[in-house]
């Protein structure tokens, strides 16, 4: 589904990301971990063509991301609050995203109904603009909006941060469901090793911009990761 070829990103002379080769097959739930500055957000930004690669490229479903815009219809993401439109209510925002992705209002409503318990009655019919919601509630809106229109690729940057414990547990369930029941390729970054090992089939560790570990998740993975980061 996603193929990374000789990708690097330099700011002036500093190389912040360098991935020789990486393949993410269709339907995989892919976790990215690493300390601050390891290049996680840089990688995701490159995946969304928000920054320009210094060398190399990413191919998503045969489309070169920095050369064509055709990856947009099947890709969805939530990176940070700048993916929300502050002056819309949650419903309006969902419908807006729905319209962009060719989904009718009813289709969006059906999707939202599935996530009622995830929203914990804090989001829908609240008569508030998104800018007036708390950080955690904003995140809920952004994550669910990224699922509208059955995208083939879903990219979530630090989805667990800022969420309350209940919501974290429900989010894990949502991601697992997506992984098991659909062909969606999910890319997640996180600082929380436990969450990531729970929901991702495969985990790549980035260190100073380079992938240093590529693990198929198993019982031993969490320990392996903890040992690595404790070095």
């Amino acid at each position: 589904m996603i193929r990374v070829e000789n990708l690097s990103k330099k700011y002036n002379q500093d190389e912040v990301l360098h991935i020789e080769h990486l393949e993410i097959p269709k339907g995989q739930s892919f976790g990215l971990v690493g300390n601050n500055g390891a290049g996680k957000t840089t990688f995701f930004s490159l995946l969304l063509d928000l920054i320009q690669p210094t060398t190399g490229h990413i191919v998503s479903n045969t489309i070169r991301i920095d050369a064509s815009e055709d990856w947009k219809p099947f890709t969805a993401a939530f990176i940070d609050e700048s993916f929300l439109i502050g002056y819309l209510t949650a419903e309006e925002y969902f419908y807006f995203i729905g319209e962009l992705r060719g989904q009718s209002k009813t289709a969006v409503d059906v999707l939202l109904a599935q996530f009622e318990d995830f929203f914990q009655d804090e989001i829908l019919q609240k008569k508030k603009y998104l800018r007036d919601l708390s950080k955690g509630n904003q995140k809920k809106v952004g994550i669910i909006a990224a699922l509208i229109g059955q995208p083939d690729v879903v990219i979530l940057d630090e989805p667990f941060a800022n969420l309350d414990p209940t919501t974290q547990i429900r989010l894990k369930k949502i991601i697992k469901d997506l992984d098991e029941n659909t062909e969606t390729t999910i890319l997640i970054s996180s600082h929380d090793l436990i969450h990531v090992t729970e929901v991702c089939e495969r985990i790549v560790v980035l260190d100073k911009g380079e992938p240093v570990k590529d693990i198929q998740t198993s019982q031993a993975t969490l320990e392996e990761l903890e040992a690595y980061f404790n070095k």
Partner: protein
Amino acid sequence: MRYSQFLFFEWKQFKRSSSFQKGIGIKIVLLLAALYFIAAFTGLGLVAYYLIQKSFPQLDPIVVVNNYLIFWFLLDLTYRFFLQQLPVMNIKPFMLVPVKRSTIIHYLLAKTSWSFFNWLPLFFFIPFAIILLVEAYPLIQVMGWLVAMILFTLSLNYLNFLINKNNTYFYGLVSLIFSFAALRYFNIYDITVLAGEFFNKMYSLWYAFLIPLLLLVLLYRRNYAFVRKSFYLDDAIRKEKKLVRTQEFSFLNRFGKMAPFLKNDLKLILRNARPKQVLFMSFLFLFYGLIFYTQETYSDSPAFLVFASVFITGGFLLSYGQLVPSWDSEYYKLLMSQNIPYRQYLESKWYLMLVAVIISFILATPYIYFGWDIYAMIAAGALFNIGLNSFITLFGGALNRVPVELNVKAKAFSNTQGFNPTQLLIALPKMLGPMLIFYIPYKLINFNAGLLALALSGLIGLMLKSFFLNKIESIYQKGKYKTIAAFNEKK
């Protein structure tokens, strides 16, 4: 914590911001413009005395100048309102460190007095005062007058701060000016006579400068109190929770693929402080014609009337359009990663401008009162706006990478202005273009030919719509990464 440290921080912020890396060409042009204005003002200051003496031999030049000072200061304030950059400072990091709030505020306010807009009038007032002395006017009175002028200029500086940051002051002042203008227009009461007498007192009583001094102190304290009040993060922590309604605007669905954007833009305008202000301003543009059409002086120079006519229907187009795509800067990354072709995005903005021009044109119907010639001119101006101005404005916006904070009005520390000097440069063809298009055939053939040329230019532009949009789209495409990075910068 000393003032020098603030200066140091600011220098860093300035040097490291992306707008610093703006083209060197624009900087040179700005510098030249500044030099030009300085030269023009100095020249005016030197010759004004003798010019007035020649035109009004029976009057004392200083009295003539004083009589018209009110217009000078009004103009000064207007330019400031649109052009002067107000201080921006990120206060959050300073709230917890041991530095007195008053230090920060005084620094912030003092900084504004160094603006070019405060220096420029001096280039007129000082040479003028020198000439007065050369002409053997009494030293003490001239000095008193000069000091008063400087104090008035500084007062305007702080008045501008207030009307920029606070809607109550802004609307209050605008309605005050309008009511005095109306009283004067209908010959009920002429405030300018009183103002003239007032400013003459500034000269005849040397100690009268105490009045503007008092004014300055009062305004400064008002500013201080205003900034002091907003020196809390209350806004960020305890937000006003107003219940709002989800709106559909389903009547816009007929626009097909553009509908979601149009709906969004409508909400953007209705729900945010900045765009609302722009909407109000563009409403004021409708009255622009009243200034020009009623003056005898302009009826002989129709090129100026064309200028006014373009503004009547173009207010919204110009003021809203120049900030496309900055209006969407807060969520630009979303737009860039969503399923949105630039083309649709641009086209929806264009339709919005089109609708605004049409509405303004309908609202301008009462101008028929000034004759069909004028009305035809407004119509031709509207066509020009739709066919050419819209694209020039969108083009200018594409070069503008200043992020806009949508919902700030009363926050004293952030820059609520989107109008920068670069924008002014791009604005020149928008204002001079229609005048030229009209003027050449008007001079060569006649009035109607001029109007026809203006209308035709708009129609031709309309026919080339997809060509223009393609061009603008490719600029967007090319500047994509830069724009994302600039909008991403925290203000």
